[in-house]
């Protein structure tokens, strides 16, 4: 009887409010790594601050964060390490700031990638979302600045969107600390595997591309059986991405685990 009561408490969002401990930069022995990705100026750093209690400088202009910022939080007795990535419009080009974001999601293989979008500019933001979903299978969409979208009379059906994208969708207004609890809950569920994502994959119309990708996929999976983002690697190979070619040549592509990779990334940034 008393057990079931406790159980009920734990599933109630109100309980979880008290369950969030902002750890600031204190993040040893974390259980999960969460990456924050998104277009520039969608409020990633604001979401980051809301979750970690840190005061990473925020500003209303694109390109504020150029390096990675890290922080931690404790939620439901699990320690999360949160990495705030620089904002990018795409993962397909190679300026230094975009590379930092791409390499982290691709090679770092975070447990959850939270994609922060500007709700009032959803369509444009979705380009990046689709690219991220090519790379990773575990993601949460954070519909940030939802208050601004409402102010502009834009209404988003988050359930339809979640169904289409195959990942949880949470409307937030991080500036006013709204929706942060729901976001935490979904991050937790995806990290622990309680929510299984079935991410949308980009549909190409060209038959040639489809065939080429399929051929490469087969070969890649033989060399790197655990590769979670084989489609995307194939596409990048077709574009002649030198960094991916190097990673295949050295065999690094398959053996990367986030825990070994973090020190490497730190050197780079």
């Amino acid at each position, binding site marked *: 009887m008393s057990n079931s009561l406790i159980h009920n408490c734990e599933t109630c969002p109100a309980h979880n409010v008290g369950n969030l401990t902002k750890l600031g930069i204190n993040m040893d022995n974390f259980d999960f790594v969460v990456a924050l990705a998104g277009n*520039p*100026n969608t409020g990633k750093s604001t979401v980051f601050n809301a979750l970690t209690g840190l*005061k990473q*400088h925020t*500003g*209303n*202009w*694109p*390109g504020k964060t*150029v*390096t990675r910022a890290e922080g931690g939080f404790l939620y439901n007795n699990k320690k999360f390490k949160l990495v705030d990535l*620089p904002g990018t419009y795409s993962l*397909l*080009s*190679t*300026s*230094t*700031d975009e590379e930092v974001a791409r390499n982290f999601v691709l090679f770092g293989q975070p447990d959850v990638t939270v994609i922060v979008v500007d709700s*009032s500019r*959803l*369509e*444009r933001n*979705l*380009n990046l979302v*689709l*690219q991220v979903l090519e790379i990773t299978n575990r993601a949460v969409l954070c519909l940030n600045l939802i208050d*601004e979208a409402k*102010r*502009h*009379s*834009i*209404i*988003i*059906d988050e359930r*339809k*969107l979640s169904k289409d*994208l195959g990942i949880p969708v949470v409307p937030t207004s991080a*500036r006013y600390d709204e929706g942060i609890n729901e976001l935490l809950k979904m991050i937790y569920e995806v990290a622990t595997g309680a929510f299984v994502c079935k991410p*949308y994959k*980009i*549909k190409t*119309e*060209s038959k*040639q*591309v489809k065939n*080429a990708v399929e*051929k*490469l996929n087969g*070969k*890649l999976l*033989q*060399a790197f059986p655990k590769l979670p983002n084989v489609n995307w690697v194939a*596409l990048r*190979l*077709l*574009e*002649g991405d030198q960094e991916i070619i190097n990673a*295949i*040549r050295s*065999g690094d592509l398959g053996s990367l685990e986030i825990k070994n990779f973090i020190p490497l990334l730190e050197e780079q940034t």
Partner: protein
Amino acid sequence: MENINNTYRESIISEATTLRWEVGENFHDSLMESIYKNASEIAAHSVTKKNKQQNHTFDQKLDKIITSRMFGFPAMFIVLAVVFWVTIIGSNAPSAMLASVLIDKIHPWLKEIAAAISTPLWISGLLIDGAYLGMAWVVSVMLPPMAIFFPLFTLLEDFGYLPRVSFNMDSLFRKAGAHGKQALTMSMGFGCNVAGVIATRVIDSPRERLIAIITNNFALCNGRWPTQILIATIFIGGAVPGYLAGIASAGAVVGVALLGVVLSLVVSWGLSRTVLKGEASTFSLELPPYRPPRILRTLYTSLIDRTAIVLWRAVIFAVPAGLVIWLVSNITIEGISLAEYFINWSNPFGLLFGLNGVILLAYIIAIPANEIVIPTILMLTVLTLGMNSVGAGDGVMFELESVNATADIFKAGGWTLLTGINLMLFSLIHNPCSTTIYTIYKETRSLKWTTVSALLPVVMGFIITFFVAQIWRLI
């Protein structure tokens, strides 16, 4: 086994190369097209818009003024001038109050305690007259202007004004052969050059990034704003009738800041025509929507983030600088202190540039941090004048109750309007602080470009102050 794997992996790469030919050249474009198409289908499925036009109009109207050809630049000057004017007017009284507490009350009190427990004179001199006063000076001169300026600047940033500034400046930078985003990194430099140099990572082309790094120093940083504001208040404000003083000094600071922008354009132009040749690349800049600033949070974060950090840095550097000042002015050879030797020796040289030996020595002591230039200058001036009635002895950063008292010391030190103007110019155009130089090295990994970034501005500073001084004296 390892070899077989290697061969297999190589075969993937060669297969990819073959397939790349098959899928054709426009593969990238067609991939992007399908991404866009997919995105718009998904968005169309879940997004509904009601009466589109209504709320966009405010943003659009404001943008029409702020980013227009006619009003864009004047609006920028006015906004900047108002920010400085408020800072200058607002910081006078709190500065005087802090000085009277930290320097008039606590300093003698510390001396009394030291005397009561019979501390040796050199220890109390070094710690209380050197280190403590150095710190107290920095706090009372810098805290009030920073506590007003940074929150105002952060509010502008939060509101969404800075990207509009870059939008206005973009075409100028492109004409100078630099990247339009340099306007953004320059804006960051107005806060701190270290941040500005790091922010150049948003620029893809190494050529344009180097230009942005080298010229970032021309954006007046935190450490230099207080120098500008104080000197402008004393010399520019003092040169005009009282009722104009506030406006004239604010105008002078805006003038120096704009000169920095002009210099950064000119130097970019020069570099891109000579050692860093190339075409400017294009980019798209998304103008963010205007957002109502969150005033309380902005006040809090700008006080914690900027004011406290900059102040802390200043204090950290002021303490050893205070020690050094006390030492160079108390170690004597045949009755003349080291500081006096240097000042007497470099004075004629300084006068050539409309500066003086004191200013030159202060800039050497202050290489670690621009923040401590003014306290150092004041202290050294008093020392060379032997103004024992003002200070409590050699090497002591003395009490100054208000800006007027500071002005009296400068004037007693033989300063003229020219000295003031040239100090403002030299403060804008000289080497970056040691932290910025180190950051430039970290970002470029090149000794050559680090040296260029450090020396180019000093040389320019001497040339410009030299000509200003010569022309001034002719007139």
